[in-house]
């Protein structure tokens, strides 16, 4: 099984016959996906290896898509006919390259880095005196994408990353990791051990207080409250998306970018899933909305929007405007100094789930627990608590941004049934007067 050795320019030429007027375009999205899953409970390895493509024609305000789970000339011809919606009189040119692959399945999914991870995590947890039962599943993901469109041929984009699913006393927690090195297992063990300790604490009512979010929790918060809020399809559901531009959405302490090119090296992208070049998009500058997250469809439809943020979970989904890698401009204070300034409050290291109600603009963040802070010192633990408030209120409550920007996975984002990995480089944040209730 190999990735098709086709000539992208021949595909682009064939697609060039489909658009008939301004604002119309056609593209072909080719992908290979491999995923290797390893449990540490004696369960066998599981692997997934997929290839396929999807052709799309956007014409007269409608979109026609044909997807195939294999890549041959016959598949291409039948898909081409389906999106053209007629028998094209133009001869198709599908030229296969000799001896040169434009991407392909990556072998060696069961790498040492993956197979040793469960053992390393167990050892690290043991060192922390963690004697409780848990179940860990490690996955390695690799994806290669190539887009050829009616006007251009893209370059192959590659993403490799890991995800971990942990079933711990107190619940389930998953995260994304750009690598599985020794340092990563260390911090994973720290968070897992902390997570398990919360299971012994009672779910908490938190009256309005100072809340400090660790980098991992901040990543989930900003993904929900900034990224989802500024996705153009979310904004368009309630009116003209351009009305958001210039609006003071957050506290002036926050400047947030979406930049796939500064994501961790293994998942760095120079073009999106529509083949458009990515841009460093300033979503919030000192709290005010500067740019929106847009894909090609919305950029064609609404003046002033920049494409380059079109993403799709795989070939069977339509692309949509999505964030990829959020980057928060760090502040000057160290997180330790920020914590020591808190007279009374809580520290939340992670959220297990985040959600934005796009109709009401309400953000919901579920923490498995939190640490109590008194006079700048950790004084105890709380059980599960949920932060639920308008996204703008939570963003407006950000009083300080620490200097410790860390690369982290913001988790799997699920919107419109598409499950996408999202990344962030975020520091510790301090929020004033935020309340929470048990869940």
């Amino acid at each position, binding site marked *: 099984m190999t990735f098709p050795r086709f000539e992208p320019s021949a595909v682009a030429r064939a697609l060039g016959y489909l658009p008939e007027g301004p604002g119309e375009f056609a593209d072909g999205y080719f992908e290979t996906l491999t995923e290797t899953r390893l449990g540490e409970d004696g369960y066998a390895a599981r692997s997934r290896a997929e290839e396929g493509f999807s052709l799309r024609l956007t014409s007269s305000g409608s979109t026609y*898509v*044909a997807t195939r789970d294999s890549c041959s000339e016959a598949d291409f011809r039948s898909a081409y006919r389906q999106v053209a919606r007629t028998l094209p009189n133009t001869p198709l040119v599908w030229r296969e390259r000799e001896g040169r692959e434009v991407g392909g399945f990556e072998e060696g999914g069961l790498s040492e880095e993956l197979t040793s991870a469960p053992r390393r995590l167990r050892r690290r947890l043991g060192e922390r005196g963690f004697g409780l039962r848990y179940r860990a599943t490690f996955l390695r993901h690799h994806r290669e994408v190539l887009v050829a469109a009616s006007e251009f041929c893209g370059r192959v984009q590659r993403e490799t990353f890991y995800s971990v699913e942990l079933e711990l006393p107190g619940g389930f927690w998953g995260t994304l990791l750009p690598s599985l090195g020794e340092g990563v297992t260390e911090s994973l063990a720290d968070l897992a051990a902390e997570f398990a300790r919360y299971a012994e604490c009672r779910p908490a009512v938190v009256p309005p207080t100072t809340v400090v979010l660790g980098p991992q929790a901040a990543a989930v918060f900003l993904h929900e409250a900034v990224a989802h809020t500024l996705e153009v399809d979310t904004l368009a559901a309630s009116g003209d998306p351009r009305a958001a531009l210039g609006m003071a959405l957050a506290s002036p302490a926050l400047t947030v970018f979406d930049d796939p090119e500064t994501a961790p090296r293994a998942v760095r992208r120079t073009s999106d899933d529509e083949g458009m070049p990515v841009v460093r998009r300033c979503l919030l500058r000192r709290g005010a909305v500067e740019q929106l997250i847009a894909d090609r469809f919305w950029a064609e439809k609404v003046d002033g929007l920049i494409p380059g943020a079109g993403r799709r979970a795989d070939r069977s989904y339509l692309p949509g405007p999505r964030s990829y890698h959020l980057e928060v401009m760090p502040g000057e204070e160290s997180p330790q100094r920020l914590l020591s300034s808190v007279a009374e409050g809580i520290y939340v290291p992670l959220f297990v789930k985040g959600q934005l109600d796009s109709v009401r603009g309400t953000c919901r963040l579920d923490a498995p627990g939190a640490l109590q802070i008194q006079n700048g010192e950790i004084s105890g633990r709380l059980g599960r608590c949920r932060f639920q408030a308008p996204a703008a209120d939570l963003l407006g409550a950000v009083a300080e941004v620490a200097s410790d920007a860390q690369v982290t996975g913001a988790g799997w984002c699920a919107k419109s049934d598409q499950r996408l990995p999202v990344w962030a480089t975020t520091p510790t944040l301090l929020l004033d007067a935020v309340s929470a209730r048990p869940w």
Partner: protein
Amino acid sequence: MDTGDLLEEAAAATARLQSAASTTSRIETYLKKGRSRTFSLEPAASVVHSDELGWAVRVHAEREAGFGCGSGTPRMPALSAGAAPLALPTLEETQARVSLPPVRDLDAPLLSEGEGLAWLRSVAERLKDELPGARLLRGVLEDGASLGVVASSEGVTASYRHRVATLKLEAVGADPQYGGVFLAASARSARSFVASSVARRLADRLAIAESGISPEASTCRAVLSPEVAAAVLESLAPIFVGPEHWSIARSLAGSEARWGVSELSLIDDPHLTEGLLPQARDGEGVPTQRTVLVDRGRLRQPILGRGDEEFAEVDGLPLSGCRYRHSYRALPEASPSHLFLRHERAASVSQLVGELGGGYYFIDVTGPVRRHFSEGWLEVPVCGFQVRGQRATAQVRGARLRLDLRHVFHSILGAGRDLRFRPRRGCIGSPSLLVEGVEVAPG
């Protein structure tokens, strides 16, 4: 491609993989070909034509095992040493003959581009008529058909044909502060969805969200729609699959093993031809059969399959194929096929509402179900109507239905003739139920 061709392809792939592997390896190949059309209206009218070509391979060797899946041509999965065996069924375990009555709509053509988009537009228009200011935020209609086969090195072969349509809608009323409402439905064929009733259901939900009142805490009678009753059943399903959680079912039923009223039965029927996914064999090729889990109120057995022989032998309980493939990307997994409640006194829904006297008619679930088996309760967030003397007197939102699992099935007074299924891991279904003594609370 017909079943015979695909079976040959699967057998050839199995032989090819086995020749490349060690001779002691047992290999099973699953192939699936599917076709679907997906229609949506937002952000633009779109039609996605998908041709699916999936495979899954299980390998079980002496000291290692593995599972792989993908698209295109089947390939050998990564094997891990020391892994628990992925035991494959033997030919003997799959040899019993089993046949399924003819299933309707399998060969009906998929919706055309015009039909699919027109249907969604019709829902959007009717929704506006039903509730001025309401609009569809998202509408996705998918119509698909598939053919799957299994062939193993043990000589096991099986084939499956499915036809399923799914609908997912999100709508919002004139004032977005009340939030959006979601509706999901499934049917054998997309042509059986009725635009006017779907629009009315969305409008009802939106109207309740906008002007519903919070209920007062009370213990009363209630009619639970199939959606609410199936959500209750879905959260109980794990205790009816395999021996692992059977002790919970036993403890809830008490020493006399009475689960509910004597008119009530709980059945898992893979052969239910009016169900969504009838199949004569499970995902491993083992023959399936109807299993009565609760027989006229009396607890009988969980769904038992390969691997549960020891448990079954003690009480002489029958085994059935029950390891289904919920996708070619997933391992076969023990689950229900069509798990549903049946009540011998079936009536129309209007009769059930008529018998309410005073109480509630809950039409939908508005959030996740919370359950606590050891304490024996379950809580469902619901919305619906307050009913007095056969008339709806108020719309009710933000209601919490608390059910005592030791008593709720003893309090079912009747059921409707409107059995509907929710596809989850297996299909879970129920008719409308008239229940007395349910606790309703705000929140």
